[in-house]
């Protein structure tokens, strides 16, 4: 409603002098109409912002463009044979402070717009001869029609400081050469444009060629893994749910609880235990020896040391982790499928297999498509499982800093924590984002729940 008023006022009423002054001196319109607290607040924000920009904000923005010019170097101390180290500019901090300055500026622009809107609003109220709201009236609105501002304030502050700023920072890093050869504070790093993307996607000579070889190798495995991990869990989970929910099975709650127990077990514990089970001298190989299937410790199955075995092993372990989730979810859906559908099918002479493919499966797939997409993306980013089970191994000299079971995310992690190739890691992060975003956009946009989000209620 307030939006409507604003647009009307823009056409019909020319700005009064007080409103015009508000374009330069924030809060003037409010002060002129005796809204002292609000006006003073706007004025204070303007003064604060200008002071901030003069005291260092402008410098921050400039530093963000240059990313520092003075390298760390040694300097002769005058009149002596010794020299001392002079620390140069810190490109990393320059970039960070630059982003923070940009965020502060964005917030200021928001206040500026609010200031003009508020000035026009009071002007309009005065012309109509209506009561101009006092500060207390404004505060009261914060628990009513403007309650969203109250509720969203803290969450948004949290999101901006701990998600948005870091994210913008890392996205920008992808366009610099902040890698193992350009570590701060000793060295500077610089803007390099799209060079990192070119290295990763198109290859080049030397290192760049290895980057792109690794990227496509790891990407291929990531997609294969996500496909198998998602669909094995999905279908086996549904089958388990159907078996538990079929007529005549007793102690349904017990069977379900046994599987659910593993969801409740902290994942890193169960995964570390599984790692122990599958390791060279672990429980499984011991059991196979005891059962006489393999002869001795020299002939153990290389669960984690052979690339193919390692890949199969983690898909199997993932089933152990994931089937209970799907089982739990599809149990709920199964119970909601109307029983008369099955009765009608029985009368028509359908057998169990037909009923599964014609009634149960379509119903479940219909309901769970969004879940499948999120699970697929979740599996592309399934850090814990790979990191805890194989750590990305077995390693190979083909790849740069990656092993045969590394996913893009675990490779990203290794690049950051082991190699300090931040620019490369950020580039890969952006590529992962593009892949997941593309996948979900194609599918989400076509679902009813997205299209009719607003009209649904």
């Amino acid at each position, binding site marked *: 409603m307030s939006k409507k008023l604003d647009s009307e006022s823009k056409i019909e009423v020319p700005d009064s002098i007080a409103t015009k002054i508000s374009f330069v001196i924030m809060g003037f319109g409010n002060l002129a109409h005796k809204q002292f607290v609000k006006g003073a607040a706007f004025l204070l924000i303007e003064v604060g912002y200008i002071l901030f920009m003069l005291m260092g904000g402008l410098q921050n923005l400039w530093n963000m463009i240059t990313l520092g010019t003075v390298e760390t170097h040694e300097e002769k101390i005058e009149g002596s044979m010794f020299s001392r180290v002079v620390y140069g500019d810190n490109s990393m901090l320059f970039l*960070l402070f630059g982003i923070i300055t940009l965020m502060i500026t964005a917030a200021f622009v928001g206040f500026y717009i609010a200031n003009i809107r508020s000035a026009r609003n009071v002007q309009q109220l005065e012309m109509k001869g209506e009561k101009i709201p006092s500060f207390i009236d404004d505060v009261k609105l914060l628990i009513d*029609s403007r*309650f*969203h501002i109250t*509720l*969203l304030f803290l*969450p948004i502050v*949290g*999101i901006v*400081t*701990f*998600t948005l700023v*870091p*994210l913008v*920072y*890392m996205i920008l890093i992808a366009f610099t050469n902040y890698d193992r050869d350009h570590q701060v504070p000793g060295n500077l790093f610089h803007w390099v444009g799209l060079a990192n993307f070119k290295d990763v996607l198109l290859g080049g000579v030397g290192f760049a060629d290895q980057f792109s070889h690794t990227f496509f190798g790891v990407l291929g495995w990531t997609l294969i893994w996500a496909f198998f991990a998602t669909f094995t869990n999905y279908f086996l989970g549904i089958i388990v749910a159907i*078996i*538990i929910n*079929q007529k005549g*099975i007793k102690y349904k709650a017990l*069977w379900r609880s*046994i*599987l*659910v*127990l*593993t*969801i409740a*077990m*902290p994942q*890193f*514990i*169960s995964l*570390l*235990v599984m790692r*122990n*089970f599958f*390791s060279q*001298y*672990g429980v499984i190989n*011991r059991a196979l020896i*005891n059962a006489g299937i393999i002869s001795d410790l020299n002939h153990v199955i290389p669960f984690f040391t052979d690339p193919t075995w390692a890949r199969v092993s983690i898909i199997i372990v993932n089933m*152990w982790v994931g089937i209970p*989730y799907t089982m*739990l*979810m599809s149990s*709920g859906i199964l119970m909601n499928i109307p029983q008369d559908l099955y009765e009608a099918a029985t009368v028509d002479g359908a057998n169990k297999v037909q009923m599964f493919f014609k009634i149960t499966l379509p119903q479940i797939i219909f309901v769970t498509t*969004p*879940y499948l997409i999120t699970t697929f*993306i979740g599996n592309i980013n399934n850090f814990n499982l790979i*990191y805890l089970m194989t750590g990305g191994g077995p390693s190979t000299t083909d790849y740069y800093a990656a092993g045969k079971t590394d996913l893009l*995310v675990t490779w990203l992690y290794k690049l950051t924590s082991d190699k300090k190739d931040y620019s490369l*890691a*950020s580039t890969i*992060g*952006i590529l*992962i984002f593009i892949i*997941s975003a593309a996948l*979900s956009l194609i599918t989400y946009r076509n679902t009813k*729940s997205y299209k009719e989000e607003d009209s649904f*209620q």
Partner: protein
Amino acid sequence: MSANTTSKTKSLQAQKKAGLIASYVFLIILSIIWVIPILWVVLTSFRVEPGSFVSSFFPAPYKWQAEDGRWLEQTYTLQNYIDLFTPDGDYDFGRWYMNTLIVAIFSCLISTFFAVSTAYVMSRMRFKLRKTFMNVALVMGMFPGFMSMIAVYFILKSVNLNQSLIALIMVYSAGAGLGFYVCKGFFDTVPKALDEAAMIDGATKAQVFFKIVLPMSKPIIVYQALTAFMGPWMDFIFAKFLMGTNYKTYTVAIGLYSMLERERIFTYFRQFAAGSVCVAVPIMVLFMCLQKYYVEGVTGGAVKG
């Protein structure tokens, strides 16, 4: 003719019975596969034999020579739990446990509040930037979380908060506003007519939120709180990155993980198992009690996307 039908129904019944028996066998095998790792951790936590690789699934009797030269033999012991809770240099599991509990309680409170209030706003209020906010949230959620880890670290370091529990609480709960989708889906199902009726009676939006929507949304709030509470017990990557070698502010997850490092695993494996039991049991109990809500959250989120 009639004899034929009876034999047919009989064979059908036999088929059904065979099907049921097969199902039971399948379920029993399944249960064994799913219970074995859990059982093994519990058994290991009482084991006397050191090391992580053992020759049998069930602990074997272990012989060792005591200081006075006598040979002792024992299979099960409580010593692992006693050792676990006895501070040993940097290793202080009791302290880590309290750290995790504190972090879990605070981040549970904060992030539930953030997620629930954001969800309410998105579900019930209409304002200019609403759709923008929802799309931005969706987009930000698609970037891998580790990507921003280093930047978060530097931000916390610049205000001297790295290596502290407050940092961990902030990291776990600050972004919770982005995870409103499941909760919003639930709020959307609470009839709007109730709000309207209340507002006709003069209730403010805040009153609608606290007195009508919140009390009706217990399942989803419990779900949010449960997932937020369990997070700090399970995450080790962010915690490890923030804490480095400051053992005093470790959480159980990093503590347990560090027990399995190559040079420690032989001595600490049984303590790792005991620690795992201490972490897993309360969480499992909590989870089992609140399972109903969890299922509603999972299915609700899945159905509504």
